[in-house]
């Protein structure tokens, strides 16, 4: 009997996986289409990279299209397990296709470095292995920053917004990709409407950001590229010196404002936009904490730097401290000066902020402010329990009770987060890096921040790492963007057990 049933069973298992391939095919097809934008830029500017896209689009769309058509018969509703598999595949396969233009346009770029670069972009990390960004074809820089922008709101969210075919299974996909501990809140009754709404708000804010950059003195193309990187909190720039290139207070202020905006929950932006009121911001406890911590740290570090006479006057100190603190805390990764030259505390504090400051549902990385707040309250709760054995306490956030299940999930999340940082740091140290570089590179990658300290500090980049170390960082960035569990679950035996 067992023998008879066994092939049957494998077939259905295969069919399930084929249905995932089917969905992946569609997403790849669309992703190939988005390369038309840098192609148009390239063709318009005649920057010499036109050919790179021709082939890339052809390969990507053809692969996606064939995968889709070939598996169309297996198309069906995705289940929870399939959703996780699809999300992981989307986030690993698409960046591979995205390397095609880079590989063709930049001589001597290895696949390892190119994949690192596209993963860095799409996970909104902003770490780079490229130097001489100014000499690259303009369209290549557009493509790099465009990846940040698309990855910021999420590839799946984008797919759900434009593709009705994902249907009910889309809800699982959405949850697997959206950052934050509480993913049940629906903004609209229909998921596709939610996805569209989020992208609409994202696009509107982006348009405002680009306009502001342009008014503040950037050239239109620069304004667009830096808008992409700002809104996605990615931190790619078209200049090696990042914002040091512009040396303009106005531009830095615009950047600060929009980095802070992108660090808020886009669901809050959406509610405010739909209701034409600012009330949702006032109600958003997480936003308050995020703004207080980030801006407060900026001011605090300014005073600290001024007091240590790093900068002669408080105004200059405030300008540099605020921009770099907001940039790192929101996990963007722009820099306007080499803050590695500041006293070590400043750099470490900024890196620390990046691990928890941004809001759930924003384009930032790290463990998110809401998780930090829940953890803090859980600790407080333990203290109360010791002092008052009969006390009944619950973790509350923003006026509502956080169910214990979520508190435990957050605790597990933090454990995995710390375990990942420790183990990856050890691997990096074992591979020959100094502790500061290894630790800061891992933290900056897991948090999707970008620049670390030491060899991977703001004045240098990840070019000096070996291939092995580069792959570790690539893995760390993906882990961070998919919030650990979505990626890790695919590697567990439970996932593949029937």
């Amino acid at each position, binding site marked *: 009997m067992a023998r008879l049933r066994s092939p049957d069973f494998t077939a259905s298992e295969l069919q399930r996986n084929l249905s995932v391939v089917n969905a992946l095919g569609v997403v790849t097809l669309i992703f190939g289409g988005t390369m038309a934008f840098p192609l148009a830029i390239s063709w318009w500017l005649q920057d010499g990279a036109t050919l790179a896209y021709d082939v890339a689009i052809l390969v990507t769309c053809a692969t996606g299209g064939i995968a889709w058509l070939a598996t169309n018969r297996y198309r069906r509703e995705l289940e929870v397990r399939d959703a996780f598999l699809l999300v992981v595949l989307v986030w690993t396969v698409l960046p591979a296709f995205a390397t095609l233009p880079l590989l063709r346009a930049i001589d001597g770029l290895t696949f390892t470095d190119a994949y690192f670069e596209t993963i860095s972009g799409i996970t909104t990390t902003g770490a780079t292995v490229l130097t001489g960004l100014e000499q690259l074809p303009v369209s290549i820089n557009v493509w790099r920053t465009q990846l940040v922008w698309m990855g910021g709101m999420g590839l799946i969210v984008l797919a759900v917004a434009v593709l009705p075919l994902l249907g009910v299974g889309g809800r699982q996909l959405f949850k697997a990709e959206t950052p934050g501990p509480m993913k049940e809140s629906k903004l609209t009754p229909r998921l596709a409407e939610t996805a569209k709404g989020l992208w609409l708000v994202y696009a509107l804010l982006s348009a405002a950001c680009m306009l502001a950059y342009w008014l503040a003195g950037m050239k239109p193309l620069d304004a667009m590229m830096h808008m992409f990187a700002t809104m996605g909190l990615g931190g790619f720039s078209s200049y090696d010196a990042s914002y040091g290139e512009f040396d303009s207070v106005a531009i830095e202020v615009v950047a600060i404002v929009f980095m802070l905006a992108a660090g808020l929950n886009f669901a809050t932006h959406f509610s405010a936009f739909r209701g034409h009121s600012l009330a949702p911001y006032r109600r958003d406890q997480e936003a308050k904490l995020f703004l207080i911590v980030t801006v407060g740290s900026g001011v605090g570090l300014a005073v600290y730097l001024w007091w240590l006479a790093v900068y002669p006057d408080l105004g200059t100190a405030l300008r540099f401290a605020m921009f770099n603190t907001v940039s790192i805390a929101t996990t963007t990764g722009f820099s306007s000066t080499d803050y590695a030259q500041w006293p070590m505390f400043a750099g470490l504090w900024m890196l620390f902020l990046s691990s928890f400051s941004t809001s759930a549902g924003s384009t930032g990385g790290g463990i998110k402010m809401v998780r930090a707040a829940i953890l803090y309250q859980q600790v407080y709760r333990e203290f109360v329990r010791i002092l008052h054995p009969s006390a*009944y306490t619950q973790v509350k956030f923003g006026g509502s009770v956080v169910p214990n299940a979520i508190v435990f999930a957050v605790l597990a999340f933090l454990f995995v987060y710390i375990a990942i940082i420790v183990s990856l740091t050890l691997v990096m140290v074992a591979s020959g890096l100094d502790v500061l570089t290894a630790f800061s590179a891992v933290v900056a990658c897991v948090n999707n921040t970008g620049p670390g300290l030491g060899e991977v500090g703001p004045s240098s980049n990840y070019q000096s790492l070996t291939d092995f170390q580069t792959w570790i960082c690539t893995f760390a960035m993906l882990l961070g963007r998919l919030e650990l569990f979505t990626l890790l679950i695919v590697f567990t035996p439970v996932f593949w057990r029937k």
Partner: protein
Amino acid sequence: MKIVILGAGQVGSTVAESLVSEANDITVVDLDGERLRHLADHLDLRTVEGNGAHPSILRAAGAEDADLILAVTQSDQTNMVACKLAATMFRVPTRIARIRSSDYLGHEEVFAPENFAIDVTICPEQIVTEYISKLIEFPESLQVVDFANGRVRLVAVKAFTGGPLVGRPLSEIRQHIPDVDSRVAAIFRHDAPLIPTGDTVIEHGDEVFFLAAKEHIRTVMRELRRMDRPVKRVMIAGGGNIGSRLALALESTYQVKLIEVNKRAGDRLSRELNSTLILIGDSTDEELLETEHVGEMDVFCALTNDDENNIMSSLLAKRMGARRVITLINRSAYVDLVHGGQIDIAISPANTTIGALLTHVRRGDCAAVHSLRRGAAEALEIIAHGDARSSKVVGKRVEDIGLPKGATIAAIVRRRVPLADDEIACAIGADDDVIIAHHDTVIEKNDHVIVFAVSKQLVPKIEKLFAVGVGFL
């Protein structure tokens, strides 16, 4: 007056009892026939069994010619629908509903005439909560009630040796605190009322009722007793409707601990409250009280639904060192039994809330009615209508008004801007004058007169005095 009362629960029956004694025609409607029979057995009223939100039941209860409908069932929805029906189908002039959910209370427009048509909403739990909050704000007082929208307060306080005025004649108060105008409305010595004159000497143990502007309360109180240190720590036993509301009202100002026996309720409480420490356990459990340092509490409030439990936990808390204990007691027989002994203050929710209802039932135009001394005495804020010809009070000096013995005019609130002739509404604003009444104060038209009656029996006579004679209107 013909009054229909919906709901024969605690509030409904207390109101019915109080109103029957004031010669009104009462009909009580309830779903529970047993409860109605019990009520009809010892009160002179009519009962109708059924759902008060059904037109047929309302008609059977005589809503067609009722002057007032009082919807005080457990359900907000029933009360609201009944008021709407009373307004549209039976044209009942005055509609009062008990609304407990703050979700409704937050939206005034829900009660507008074109919507649910409710003239007055009352929330007994809220009234009791405010009452206790004031007692905690003035921990030395026995009772604090508001008049003229809180501009004037009537405070009951026990005089103790150590207060500068104790052992001295009342007239000396002017020399003690020359800048503060206040008036002692009544003194109860060994539970017997005394009408104070300038020569009355306050003795240790007297229960003194005085009236003063809100900001002067503390100054006057300091004359009558040594002041305790202000309240910092409060423990509440019972996380029911009143307990949780009180904790919410207090938690931002004081350190609040709340004991609740039911774990499920603890879940609800932790949703509603923020900085209050919620303890799961029995409030009569000595060990729990000990570990939570009941002895260091400035105030202990026992607010569960169980009278016996409240009394026992209060006694326990008092013995373990709680500075002041406040106990909620539903059964009126118990209230007098325990008040003033080991238990500092016994509160009867029915007595506390009845005033809010009586305000709208009285024949005279009352702005506020407060039941005092656990229902024995009463203070009223009556509006003086008419003119010197039609009224027995307007244009007269206080000493010339023929008030019954035992009633005192304590204060007058006068509108700074005189009313236009066609204006009837008499709400008191923040800028109106508060005049502490003296023997030569002259009452004017539309004054809010605050009258203290040492006994409830005097109230109809006072109302009659303020009633406008034939010819007016």
